[in-house]
């Protein structure tokens, strides 16, 4: 009955314990908070770059130069900053920073459908049969890792979970509730007129006027009753109004969204592309205390003209943005406190199809993890001669989710309850990838 540690305890258990022991609700909640403060003290944030469409493992991270032409494709391996680790010649800039990340070459799951692939890679859980919905924000079955962090991590003036530029598929909160969904930027920071929705004052409203308005609103919304006699609904809303006030009035928080404050030199370093500026904005956001920034980088679904698409359209901006991010974080002393994950819904078929493309392949693919004091400059796992199947150390999406949560100081085995009362483990059947923890 008693909790084994703070991590394993949810509110429900606390109330149970609390009332047995004769503690009042307030006392139990204070105790809960005490526990929360201790176990969650962790200032590591996460930048979660999602390569949308399926990132080809054999053309980027796990080359097979000895395989037949229709399998090895047009890219050649090149040496990198770490002796013994090779990546594709389409990633020349990344090849100079392989000492800053680990390549996980043995990711594997069984879903070759985009929608289901998003779900498993965003949440760590396989999309179950039945009511799985293929709509755009379709994780009606399990919360995304970002929402778990928003729910269980410590938060500051910024929203704890921000999505840039779009709402990522399966990036939603599921049964944790909308309060833990992402704050979505809904604008591309590479666009010249980039602005974050609803953060800045509307045109025509000066700072003075806004202050007068807010003073009026504070007055009008002041509760005239004892706070416990105010309805629960209004109190809950009040919490979010206060958070919104904080964001609007905290110069530092608001500045974080203002990418134009970066010098041209820095912006060019990342590249004036969506990938580059999203990474730069993500750095500004974690620097200001956001816990989890997810970035959508599309559209990599190269069913046709795979080589052309990678070489000309997709890899150049990616190859510039990722090293720029890692270098910038490092120079600012933030890399130790920032977990960077480069992931995707699945890899691509070993064999090139008749349209010179590669199709969906969930059996083996590669992702990257960097920063946060993880062990880097290594590869983990291996695949067969065609980069088609895992031959060593399979890593599942649940393992990936467990690794992220552990790095951010959240117990990945914690059990949450759905509105139906069903107990659900945050991450089921996954373990942190031990090779990453020195």
């Amino acid at each position, binding site marked *: 009955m008693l909790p084994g540690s703070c991590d394993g305890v949810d509110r429900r258990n606390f109330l149970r314990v609390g009332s047995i022991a004769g503690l009042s609700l307030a006392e139990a909640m204070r105790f809960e908070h005490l526990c929360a403060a201790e176990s969650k003290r962790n200032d590591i944030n996460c930048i979660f770059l999602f390569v949308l469409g399926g990132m080809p493992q054999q053309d980027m991270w796990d080359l097979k130069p000895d395989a037949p032409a229709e399998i090895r494709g047009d890219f050649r391996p090149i040496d990198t900053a770490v002796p013994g680790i090779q990546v594709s010649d389409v990633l020349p800039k990344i090849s100079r920073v392989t000492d800053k990340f680990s390549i996980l070459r043995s990711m594997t799951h069984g879903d070759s459908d985009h929608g289901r692939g998003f779900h498993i890679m965003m949440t760590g859980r396989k999309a179950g049969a039945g009511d799985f919905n293929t709509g755009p924000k379709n994780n009606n079955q399990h919360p995304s890792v970002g929402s778990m962090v928003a729910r269980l991590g410590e938060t500051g003036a910024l929203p704890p979970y921000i999505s840039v530029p779009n709402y990522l598929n399966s990036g939603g909160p599921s049964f944790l509730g909308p309060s833990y969904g992402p704050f979505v930027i809904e604008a591309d920071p590479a666009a010249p007129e980039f602005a974050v929705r609803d953060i800045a004052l509307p045109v025509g409203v000066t700072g003075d006027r806004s202050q007068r308005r807010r003073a*009026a609103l504070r007055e009008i919304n002041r509760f005239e009753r004892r706070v416990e006699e105010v309805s629960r609904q209004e109190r809950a809303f009040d919490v979010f*109004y206060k958070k919104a006030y904080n964001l609007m009035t905290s110069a530092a928080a608001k500045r974080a969204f203002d990418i134009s404050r970066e010098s041209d030199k820095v912006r060019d370093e990342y590249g004036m592309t969506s990938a580059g500026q999203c990474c730069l904005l993500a750095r500004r956001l974690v620097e200001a205390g956001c816990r989890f920034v997810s970035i959508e980088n599309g559209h990599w679904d190269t069913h046709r003209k795979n080589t052309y698409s990678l070489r000309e359209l997709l890899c150049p901006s990616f190859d510039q943005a990722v090293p720029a991010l890692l270098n910038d974080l490092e120079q600012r002393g933030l890399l130790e406190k920032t977990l960077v994950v480069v992931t995707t819904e699945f890899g691509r078929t070993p064999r090139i199809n008749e349209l010179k493309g590669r199709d969906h392949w969930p059996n083996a693919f590669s992702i990257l993890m960097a920063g946060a004091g993880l062990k880097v400059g290594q590869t983990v796992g291996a695949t067969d001669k065609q980069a088609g199947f895992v031959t060593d150390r399979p890593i599942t999406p649940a393992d990936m989710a467990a690794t992220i949560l552990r790095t951010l100081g959240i117990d990945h085995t914690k059990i949450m309850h759905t509105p139906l009362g069903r107990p659900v483990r945050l991450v089921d059947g996954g373990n942190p990838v031990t090779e990453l923890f020195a």
Partner: protein
Amino acid sequence: MLRWAASTRAAVLTVMLSMVLITSVTDAGEPAEKPPVNRRVVRSLSVLPTTIQLGGANRIQQLLVTARDPSGQAFDVTHRCDVTVANTDLALMRGATVVGLADGRTELIIRCDAATIRVPVIVEQYETFPPVHFANDVIPILSKLGCNSGGCHGKQGGKNGFHLSVFGFDPKSDYAALVKEGRGRRTFAADPDSSLLLLKGTGRRPHGGGRRLVADSTDYELLHNWMQQGMPWGQQNVPTLTAIRVDPTDRVMLPNAKQQILATAIYSDGSQRDVTHAAAYSSNATTVAEVDESGRVATGRLPGEAAITVNYMGQVAAALVLVPRPNAPNPYPNMPANNRIDTLVSAKLQKMGIVPSALTDDATFLRRIYLDTIGTLPTAKEVRKFLTDNNPEKRKRVVDQLLDRDEFADYWALRWADVLLVNRETLGERGALEFHRWLRKQMADDRPYDQWVRELVTASGSSGRYGPVNFYRALPKAEDAAKAVSQAFLGIRLDCAQCHHHPFDQWGQRDFYGMVGFFNGMQRKSLGKDRELVFHSGYRETKLPLSGEVVPTRPPQGEQPQNLNSGDPRVQLANWMTSRDNPWFARLAANRLWAHFLGRGLIDPVDDLRSTSPPTNEPLLAFLTQKVIATEYDLKQVMRLILNSRVYQLSSEPNATNFDDEQNYSHYTVKRLPAEVLLDAVCQVTDVPETYPGMPRGTRAIALWDNRLPSYFLDTFGRSERQSPCECGKSNEPTMAQALHLMNAPEIEAKIVNPRGRIAALIDSNMPRKQLIEALCLSALGRPPGEKERKIAARLFAGETSEQQAAEDFLWALLNSYDFLFIH
């Protein structure tokens, strides 16, 4: 096991541990507790069971001793009274449990204060340990100890190589897992004590799940004996469990009091057995009452109600515990009653010691009933007219007017469209449009609820021409249809029972697949883009997926209908659903209506009518259910009754006795305006309509058929995703994005400053400032400005450069105020 670093935490824990220890000592059944300071006086005693029969060596019997105080109030003295056995050779007391020792007859003498009562005891077949039946005897122990729970060996794939079916739904495979797998080390007839089952269960061998079983306990003894008997599956044709009974079923308790629960299993041959120690217990409100594994309920400090769920082998029952507020006013103030609803709510409130709030004022009432009934704000003109109307019947008249407004059909079609999955994404444009059009027509025509549901459930035809068939297009598999129909119209959640027995309800796989049978054979034929012919191709057998066994097609708790083979079997289902004595259909409709207007269902969640989630006011729910049936399913008439009740018209301002009451309707529950209603309200107040692509100008959000029209506002404020047939798809949860949007969105600012909008018109009319402020308050808040609003306005008008800007600022503040965003 405990890793507590911080000293403060350790201190708190020590307190908690010691409290738990005290509890567990008394649980172990020490003769009597320390008398509480205010010991209640015992006037008389009664005991359950009235005769104690112990048949076999492993049978025991929990006692339930109830006393009455001089005022006639019942309270539990099971663990306080003094029990002696007349002939100590035949039986003994272990705590408050009778254990046999030898065959014969004797009696118990139970004394409490001056009262005494005697109970006969019969011990039979003591020498024989009855043959153990795996499914009837062993599985319940595995369930109770949590071995087969979803987090342990019941998990898909098991735990550490040992897999049990979750909650024991598949005894045959569990038997194989225990007896045949694991190289036969899990059970061991020759030496049960060295079987892994007992070694690991008791923690004598390292066990990931820790120590679950106490050596020499009743459970241990049974498992031991089962192995000694050679791990039998059990005799064929043994009586099967049909129900469990719980005593007491409801009890009014004091704060910090205890109550023993008695759980009795009833078998198909009519025999009964005490399963108090084998059942599993849980409380739905742990702040009000806790329950431990021996079935002892302990109330806390807070008043309120708790349902204690008792589960034994998939059979469930509930006991209701009620803790009234202490120091209730005496005499209790009488609430005037407009109709029977008020009488029934009043009776419950009096029982709880809660005084209802006052009647709300006219302006608040008008705004509330407009928003709740037609999803629309009253205009300034409507507010003025109502406030100056002196007719004492004016509230009643508004109820009648609103139920006849066009917006009524819009708003209720929207509500139903959310539940019935009218989703353009799954149905296509044509399908969603036709389905919505059909729903709206049912509302506009006041078609009786049973009739339109019957038409929907039995619908066949072309999706592009006939709206209701689209319901089945969102539910492509028979399993989906079975779940959706059960939940949307019966309040039965069968989802759990698809894979395992529902953990808090009576439903098992046979109920689930029994229901699936009505939809098995549903077919769809493409008629071109986004159009399909939907029809039922005739009854066919339904099989359990694991065993392939054929399951009879039947409604939950019902019989297999006769005419399944003639025509569409859904007709048989619809007959059963809409028959007047269906226990769920009208009850769910009544609960939905009540929840919509009063903010919380009498049963909550609103669409989960399971027996273990009892209503907070059964007489009221029974009355409303009866009304649904008596009015021939004319839901408007039931709404009229609710809206005319004083309970609906109570103020949302609480008093000292009811501010923490959320279950008994002592004051109106404040609600945020739903997404669509809020957007319409912003448009109406600013007098700038929203334009939706492809919709006629002036279309209101509550009238939209397309739930996927791009709208940041509607997404942010939580319009229903229409992905699941429950009311949980729609969310009123607050988020930071909502607050930011209301304060800063250029779209909303554009409405406030629009040159053709309300502010511009008011400024142009050159009306005095006082009138302008009043007009804005009437539009947004549905009431004239109070002193607070006047003061705020005065400051804004003094500080701003132009009259227009000051008016805009004032309206901005109103639109962000809780008085605007919430229904009070």
